[in-house]
């Protein structure tokens, strides 16, 4: 299953002339390298401060544009990964190994991505057992491939 792992922004990421601390960059680099070596990362990116972004508000038929920066820091995002792992717990274990991303208290949010399996019917134990039995009756295929 896939998860979007979201690093929340703090006041420092939101500053115009924000430059990440070189020590933190190095630690994050190592963490990312470990994630890549484990075959976990599908995608990742960091985001500019919200001053370089915009929001589009929808109200009935009207669409109004609000330019950044945005003030409610708790809702802002500094970067994200897309991970492929077996469970939420695995994603949590990886996040625990992440270096502290900010000087101040901070938060990383983990959200599951919708996938095909979410819409497919889940097989019951009997159905799986039935498949195992059916498979046993067939000649062995995989060895010849």
């Amino acid at each position: 299953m896939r998860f979007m792992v979201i690093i929340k922004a703090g006041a420092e990421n939101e500053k115009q002339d924000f430059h990440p601390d070189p020590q933190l960059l190095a630690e994050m680099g190592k963490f990312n390298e470990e994630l890549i070596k484990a075959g976990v990362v599908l995608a990742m990116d960091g985001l500019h401060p919200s001053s370089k972004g915009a929001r589009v508000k929808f109200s009935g038929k009207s669409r109004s544009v609000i330019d950044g920066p945005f003030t409610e820091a708790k809702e802002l995002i500094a970067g994200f990964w897309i991970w492929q792992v077996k469970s939420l717990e695995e994603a949590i274990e990886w996040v625990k190994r992440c270096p502290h991303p900010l000087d101040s208290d901070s938060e990383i949010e983990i959200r599951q991505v919708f996938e095909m399996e979410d819409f497919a019917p889940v097989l019951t134990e009997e159905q799986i057992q039935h498949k195992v039995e059916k498979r046993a009756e067939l000649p062995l295929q995989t060895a010849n491939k």
Partner: protein
Amino acid sequence: MTVTDPHQALHRTIEAVWRIESARVIATLTRFTRDVGLAEDLAQEALVAALEQWPQSGVPENPGAWLTATAKRRAIDLFRRNAVAARKHEDLARDLASDWATLEQTVPDLDSTLDDPIGDDLLRLVFISCHPVLPTESRAALTLRLLGSLTTAEIARAFLTPEPTIAQRIVRAKRTLAEKRIPFEVPRGPELAARLSSVLEVIYLLFNEGYSATAGDDLIRPTLCDDALRLGRILAELTPQETEVHGLVALMEIQASRTRARIGPTGEPILLLDQNRAHWDPLLIHRGLNAIDRAHKINATRGPYLLQAEIAACHARAHTPEATDWPRIVSLYTELAILTPSPVIELNRAVAVSMANGPQVALDLVEALAEDPSLDRYHLLPSVRADLLYKLGRHHEARTQFELAASLTQNTRERVLLLSRAASCQN
């Protein structure tokens, strides 16, 4: 927040830790014990110890080091009990002392996990799990077990095979590796290419087993595809200079990108050119194309996996079926057929030729292939032949070939599709 049973939650946490750490624990233990079977048993004992102790003590700060140290301590106990190799256990004891020192650190030590020796041990583990001395199906099971950290039950489910069969396969594989004294090493020189191709074969077999289920009702078993892709991505980082590894990863990424598009609402297969390309996964396509670029940057040689990846990439780059660069696909298949001559590749080449130069040229190629006795039971030959005959308006002959193809396939869904095409030939 939902309230969950804390004991169950911890159990799932330990499973997750195991998934992240087990291959490295087993790899490290194999280097010390020189016996991959024993190493896995010791790692399993460490997991049992974690399940017993962590509910009281909590999950340690560096769970991987804890598991490794615990498994090594079991190894020393075992060596003491057996009173074998006295020198060996002194080495282990010295090593263990430094491991416990590492454990004292409160912060997870990323430096130590990124050290090359562990990467090397992991790569050795890949090579020993896929050793050609083992039958292919055992290599596949052992690889999932040791590197994919799947349980025997999970492997059995993935292959739709009874659990005792898989368990026996793994036990036998470990015994064979011990009896034949297969060294725990990364092969060098001319041996490397042959051994690497055995590894790639296993990973691609796992992927295909998930992607085009050879038997049973399911066309796709996505978890097995995910496991194979993960193994491929890990291998690409362990051997970044091997073009064929990137080629295989690219091939799997691009094929996996079509997972959502290749099955219809009632579970029927949808052929590549009929797929809704909006359902292709752009992230995986992007990763696949990147992997091809990575291979090109190493050198200009193109092995069979990279060529197949480039063929897949021709489809991935085309936003509509009409935009497909068929002449390029034909030339890639020609190159592939020279490298690895096979009637199956010739058949695929014929399909590309039909798109580039029309059905009659292709039918001539396919009818020549039909003389090859090795394709007698291969359902795709009559299926392709039927399709070409149909395009040429020879519906009666097409129907016979669709029916022949239907009688040869093992996949229920595919049979239904072929029979419906046979029926459509009546008009």
